[in-house]
């Protein structure tokens, strides 16, 4: 469960990684796993090879020592045969004791021998070399080697080490290994039983076993077939009771290699039987020492592995940085572009694919910018055209109606009114033109409204009066042109038409911080609720009305097109009470007004 959670977490982290980290970790992980497997296999292989080599060396050494022992002991047996068959058998001891021959053979082998002696069945000395008589009180017939020789007459018998107690060795107490055999001794033609004894110097045997040094701090020792120590490097300590004897039951082990625990420590034990004697040559090597050099190799392997891992991580970091750097920079540039930054640099570096990608993105962005500029320009053109269309919707209707009224006045010989109307019309159009400006001074717009009201008042036979005023702080402000007149037109057509000379329309401009408000109020019939709701709703069809035919919706759209959706018209109306149309505009001074384009798109 925990593992699964960890894996999921790792996968999530992996997915969130940058390309550099992803490349770096992936490469490093794969190579580290590969290196670990490789190192593991190498160490294992080397360990096995080293252990096998050590074992092989140990085996060869034990075989070599065994051969030397066998050669040594067989040499002694051959000497015994020579003495017995060439010296003793060929002589009648009653006639001559072959002391000289025995002496010669002893001298020939004196480095390995302590003594050679022949005993009669009663233990009396027949002959010996290099000694001539036994110590006082010695009873050879009671000694083990003597008894065994007479007991098993067909064999030669090797004893375990002991201190010779036969001859006076000049105050020396010599450790020997006895080789004894039953001997048929001829006395005056009569065959009598006797014993041939060759005492081998223990030091000869000790030298064979002690000299070779086993690898890994191992050692050899030699036991008889019952496990009694014949040679051991710590033999004197064993005899002193300080060290233990054979640490394993050698008698139960067959020849070969064994893995055994000795005093709780694993050891490699090799056993080899020494030819005729049945002695067991044993080598003991602590198993951990067999792999002594492997430890060094393991340390080397671990150090090398750590070094290679870090080196790989280092190289991979830089390599992945080299690969992913251009991609990352490209990504940062795209992010900056998304954030709206205009000056974004797309560097074309890295590998050829990334360079191509950067080039493509740069081309694409460039194309996109051009397209956007085109779209903006088209949009501006479209707005301008809309404006012009909206404005152009005013003029023809109004002109037609006014001229119609002038005709009517003239026909009715009301020349003064006609003159006033035509004069007002002229001023009206002069302001309308405003030298092509879209945004004009508020006072001009109010003047325009006044002239319009003058014209309409004449047309409607003075059935309403007009009051136009402005707060002092609005004097120098600017407004979109021709926005009051259509509202006045609606107020007149819908509000004043039914009035009997008591109609009143007021236009009042006032300022609230950065907002300019122009209230157009009438005391007409008011606007029904459903009509009021649909006045500015583009989803509902525009009602046809009298007058110029310009809907308030057009005014509203014009304001919003120029100043944004925060501005426009607001309607407040109560049936039979009148209507208030509030024009909401931003406060524009002359400098701000200059920024707005003239008609035809000129600035």
């Amino acid at each position, binding site marked *: 469960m925990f593992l699964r959670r960890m894996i999921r977490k790792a996968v999530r982290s992996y997915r969130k990684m940058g390309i550099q980290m992803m490349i770096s970790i992936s490469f490093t992980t794969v190579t580290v796993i590969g290196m670990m497997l490789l190192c593991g296999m190498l160490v294992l292989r080397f360990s096995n090879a080293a252990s096998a080599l050590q074992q092989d060396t140990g085996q060869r050494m034990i075989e070599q020592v065994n051969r030397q022992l066998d050669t040594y002991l067989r040499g002694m047996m051959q000497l015994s045969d020579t003495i017995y068959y060439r010296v003793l058998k060929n002589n009648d001891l009653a006639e001559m004791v072959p002391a000289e021959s025995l002496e010669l053979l002893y001298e020939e082998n004196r480095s390995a021998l302590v003594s050679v002696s022949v005993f009669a069945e009663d233990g009396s000395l027949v002959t010996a070399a290099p000694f001539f008589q036994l110590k006082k009180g010695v009873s050879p017939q009671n000694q083990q080697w003597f008894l065994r020789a007479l007991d098993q007459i067909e064999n030669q018998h090797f004893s375990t080490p002991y*201190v010779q107690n036969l001859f006076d060795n000049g105050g020396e107490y010599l450790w020997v290994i006895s080789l004894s055999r039953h001997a048929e001794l001829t006395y005056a033609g009569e065959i009598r039983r006797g014993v041939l004894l060759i005492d081998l110097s223990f030091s000869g045997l000790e030298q064979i076993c002690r000299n070779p040094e086993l690898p890994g701090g191992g050692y050899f020792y030699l036991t008889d077939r019952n496990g009694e120590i014949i040679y051991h490097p710590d033999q*004197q300590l064993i*005899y002193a009771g300080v060290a233990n004897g054979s640490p394993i039951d050698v008698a139960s082990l067959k020849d070969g290699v064994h893995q055994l625990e000795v005093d709780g420590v694993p050891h490699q034990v090799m056993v080899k039987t020494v030819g005729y004697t049945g002695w067991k040559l044993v080598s003991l090597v602590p198993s951990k020492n067999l792999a002594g050099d492997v430890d060094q190799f393991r340390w*080397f392997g671990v*150090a090398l592995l750590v070094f290679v891992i*870090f080196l790989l991580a280092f190289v991979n970091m830089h390599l992945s940085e080299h690969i992913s750097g251009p991609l990352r920079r490209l990504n940062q540039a795209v992010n900056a572009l998304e954030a709206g930054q205009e000056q974004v640099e797309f560097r074309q570096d890295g590998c050829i694919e990334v360079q191509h990608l950067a080039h493509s993105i740069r081309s694409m962005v460039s194309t996109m910018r051009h397209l956007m500029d085109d779209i903006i320009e088209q949009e501006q053109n479209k707005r301008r055209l809309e404006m012009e269309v909206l404005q152009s919707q005013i003029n023809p209707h109004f002109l037609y109606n006014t001229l119609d009224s002038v005709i009517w006045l003239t026909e009715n010989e009301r020349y003064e009114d006609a003159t006033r109307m035509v004069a007002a019309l002229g001023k009206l159009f002069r302001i309308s033109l405003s030298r092509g400006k879209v945004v004009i001074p508020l006072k001009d717009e109010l003047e325009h409204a006044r002239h319009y009201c003058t014209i309409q008042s004449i047309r409607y036979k003075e059935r309403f009066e007009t009051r136009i005023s402005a707060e002092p702080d609005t004097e120098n402000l600017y407004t979109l042109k021709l926005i009051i007149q259509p509202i006045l037109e609606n107020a007149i057509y819908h509000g004043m038409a039914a009035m009997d000379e008591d109609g009143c329309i007021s236009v009042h401009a006032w300022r609230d911080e950065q907002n300019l408000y122009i209230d157009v109020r009438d005391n007409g019939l008011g606007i029904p609720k459903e009509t009021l709701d649909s006045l500015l709703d583009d989803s509902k069809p525009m009602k046809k009305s009298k007058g110029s035919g310009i809907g308030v919706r057009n005014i509203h759209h014009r304001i919003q097109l120029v100043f944004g959706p925060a501005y426009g018209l607001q309607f407040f109306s109560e049936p039979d009470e009148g209507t208030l149309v509030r024009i909401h505009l931003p406060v524009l001074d002359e400098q701000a007004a200059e920024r707005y384009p003239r008609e035809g798109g000129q600035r």
Partner: protein
Amino acid sequence: MKRRHKNFIQLAILAALSLLVILSVFFREISWPETREDRVEISVLFREWESGIWTEVRRGMEKAAADCGAELRFLTPQEANSAAEQQLLIEQELQNGADGLVVVPASPEVLENTAQIHRGVPRVAMESAPGGGSFPVVPDNPGIGKMLAEAAAEDFPGGGTALLVNPVPGSGGLWERLDAAGATLRERGISVLVCEGEQEWKERIGQADFCLLPDPALLQPMLDFCEEHQIQVPLYTVGYSKDVADGLENGQIAAAVVWSGYGEGYQAVRQAVLGKDAGPLEIPVILVRKEEMYEAENQKILFPIGN
């Protein structure tokens, strides 16, 4: 700048790791340099050397030194059994930086005095166990005395006079042997004469039926004296010297309690190298008479084997 700093750290780690790889090639040489400084220096101070009884002890010590990686310095006072000189030698060795001491004390005070000054250096006492924080590697001294006395009592069931000679009056271990022997002999109805000086034992030996020596150093002078003055006194002694074997062989020694000097020396040095209490050390002792000296188990202790 930060990036360059980071790269520098990475390169430094790489350099350190590459050094580690190189060092690992010489791992064994670095880990276990066999320098003289690593070897433990043990000073061995006998109380005397002339009697030659310490030869086997020294062989055992040298074997232990080879096994434990120690270096031994053997020292003996110019005047045999001189406690004062031995004390000076000990001080001198400790000042020279000995890592451990093995001492056959000429007097119990020798190690006790040292113990108060040099507490950190392991001290092993042979033959006598003076205490004072030293590790004793000694045979069972009272047991030895008792074994000798019982052997003598067996040979003299009707009683008699025993001469107990201590050739090293300052040695506590020898006194332990003699005290135990004297007590046992008295229990068995045997009169006991105890003497120390050479003149004293020479004067009294003619009065004794047998003589008991707790140390073989006096063996040869006594045998020579008896032969010279045609005095027939059975001897009961201890030790692991050739003189003891010879004495048993020719019947001059009636019985001897023997143990392995080789094993004793080995354990003493091993204990000194170990430097802490390894628990009770057993030194097997056996009583040997002439007729038993070639028995398989007896000869293993009585006669040293090998080189």
